[in-house]
């Protein structure tokens, strides 16, 4: 259909300028975040008990043999850095997907028990079933999908309401966390560090074997999620409006849930449920990007930055070394409280 009276050119230009301004802001934020993530990643490789300068680190990453650095950077720090990067991207991406889809900042996978499911299954697999490597990942992914399904079914009553799903998810998450704690008490020989990995998340002792499945999952499922970003943005307007705009609501939701749960479950199997990263990344990204388009990419980058920086802080900034999840937990908990106070004041609309 064409308008009988074409709109004034000045208005069309104003609309175009407005749109360009919004996309410039978004691209600028994404670029800055990407640079910061890259910088934090490089610093992660440089610092440690021995400091290696930038050029040696780069040579190691490019595959050159550098005495000393090749082992420390190549075998110890690189897997840890890559895991931090992959896990951060995965947590950020999955978190903002859930938050956008359910139109609620509390709806992130770590609040509604999905990460707890993956963590509990991983611990159960390792301690009770003596599994290792890919088997642990498989169990974790299956459990995360299972938990997502259970939460979905329990909260489904002629449609999924965000608030009901979140409350049920929090309950399920608490149950699963107690499973994790219980299983850890059965693991006598298990040291404190390893236990913390499954309670709050840790990058200690990262190996390529652990990183690989998470990386592959992110590379396969991440692009599928990004392909849904427009449909997810339409879902923000409400299910009916999105459907009226030609979005196949249930299909979009199914793809988004499966992919988001997939990336986060593989990441959790590698480093445990790093506390609050998927919960924090979306809202932080929203603050700095503003209402200027999809938050998937910015939130993924914020997630990566959070994990990388929190790991640096946990390792070097304090007198004791803390696993990354302790640091992100300290950041996340106050925000959770703030959010609950704020939504209560707004009339509990969540």
């Amino acid at each position, binding site marked *: *259909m*064409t*308008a*009988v*009276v*074409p*709109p*004034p050119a000045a*208005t*069309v230009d*104003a*609309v*175009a300028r*407005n*749109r360009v301004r*919004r996309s410039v802001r978004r691209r600028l934020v994404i670029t800055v975040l990407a640079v910061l993530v890259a910088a934090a990643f490089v610093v992660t490789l440089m610092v440690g008990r021995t400091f290696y300068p930038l050029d040696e680190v780069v040579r190691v990453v490019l595959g050159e043999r550098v005495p000393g650095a090749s082992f420390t950077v190549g075998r110890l720090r690189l897997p840890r850095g890559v895991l931090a990067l992959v896990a951060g991207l995965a947590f950020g991406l999955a978190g903002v997907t859930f938050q956008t889809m359910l*139109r609620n900042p509390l709806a992130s996978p770590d609040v509604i028990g999905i990460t707890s499911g993956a963590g509990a299954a991983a611990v159960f697999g390792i301690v009770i079933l003596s599994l290792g490597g890919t088997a642990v990942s498989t169990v974790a992914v299956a459990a995360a999908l299972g938990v997502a399904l259970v939460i979905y079914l329990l909260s489904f009553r*002629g449609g999924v309401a965000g608030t009901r799903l979140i409350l049920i998810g929090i309950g399920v998450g608490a149950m699963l966390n107690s499973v994790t704690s219980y299983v850890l008490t059965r693991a006598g020989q298990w040291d404190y560090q390893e236990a913390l990995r499954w309670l709050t998340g840790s990058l200690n002792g990262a190996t390529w074997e652990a990183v690989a499945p998470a990386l592959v999952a992110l590379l396969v499922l991440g692009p599928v999620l990004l*392909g849904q970003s*427009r449909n997810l*943005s*339409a879902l*923000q*307007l*409400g299910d*009916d*409006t999105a*459907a*009226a*705009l*030609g*979005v*196949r609501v249930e299909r979009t939701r199914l793809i988004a849930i499966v992919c988001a749960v997939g990336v986060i479950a593989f990441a959790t199997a590698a480093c445990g449920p790093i506390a609050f990263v998927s919960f924090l990344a979306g809202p932080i990204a*929203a603050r700095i990007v*503003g*209402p*200027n388009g999809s938050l998937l990419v910015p939130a993924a980058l914020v997630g990566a930055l959070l994990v990388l920086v929190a790991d640096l802080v946990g390792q070097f900034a304090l007198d004791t070394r803390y696993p990354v999840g302790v640091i992100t937990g300290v950041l996340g908990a106050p925000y959770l409280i703030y959010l609950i106070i704020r939504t209560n004041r707004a009339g509990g609309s969540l």
Partner: protein
Amino acid sequence: MTATHSLAAEELTLAYGERLVIEGLDLVVPAGSITAIVGANACGKSTLLRSMSRLLSPRAGRVLLDGKAVHRMPAKELARTLGLLPQSPIAPEGITVADLVGRGRHPYQGVFSRWSREDDAAVAAALEATQTTTLADRAVDELSGGQRQRVWIAMALAQQTDLLLLDEPTTFLDVAHQVEVLDLLTDLNRTRGTTIVMVLHDLNLAARYADHLVALAAGQIHAAGTPAQVLTEDCVRAVFGLDSRVIEDPTSGAPLMLPLGRHHVDTPAEVSPRG
């Protein structure tokens, strides 16, 4: 612009779970005109509208757009012909007017397609038509109720559909803004030939603004036709359980319904309104 699209319901039965809402309903929406659907609360008005825009699958029967069942059409193709403004759409926090109206272009965009001049022109035309151009940079949540409703209508207009369905577009608006929204819809209908179907609560505004009035009662069409044919004292009693007088509106000639309650009138109601 000629009105070429036909929209009709055939033997339509709609239900939520076990509860039947609409049973065996036949409805033809006259092309190029304004149709208003009226009826008591929970009579199935919104349900009917949702099904006509395929948000709800029929238990039996079909909704036909140009002779094709809407529930079988590709989602985006349908969204380029038929738009719907639901009763309570959600504006994401902080979203600007221009951004929200731009969302109406969704059915024209693929995963990788970029914004075109055509998209900008459609958004501009929608802003102009709803007189919201000056609000383009404002956040939707800062606007007044009337402005917000115009912005939502602008979003539906940016979708450039020949058919526009609106579920109670005037709820929560004061009387001046109600008239403003209905005038805007009439402008669209007259200048572009857009076929409009809306659910309205206010019988008198419905009678004045609609070319075609459909009175729904208990999931069935009680009466359909011109406002003068449909809005009668008998119809109001049957549909709403309310005694009334219907006179000619001295300003427009449309029927005007005056409710008779149990107080303040010379001849009080014989039956009391349904509780």
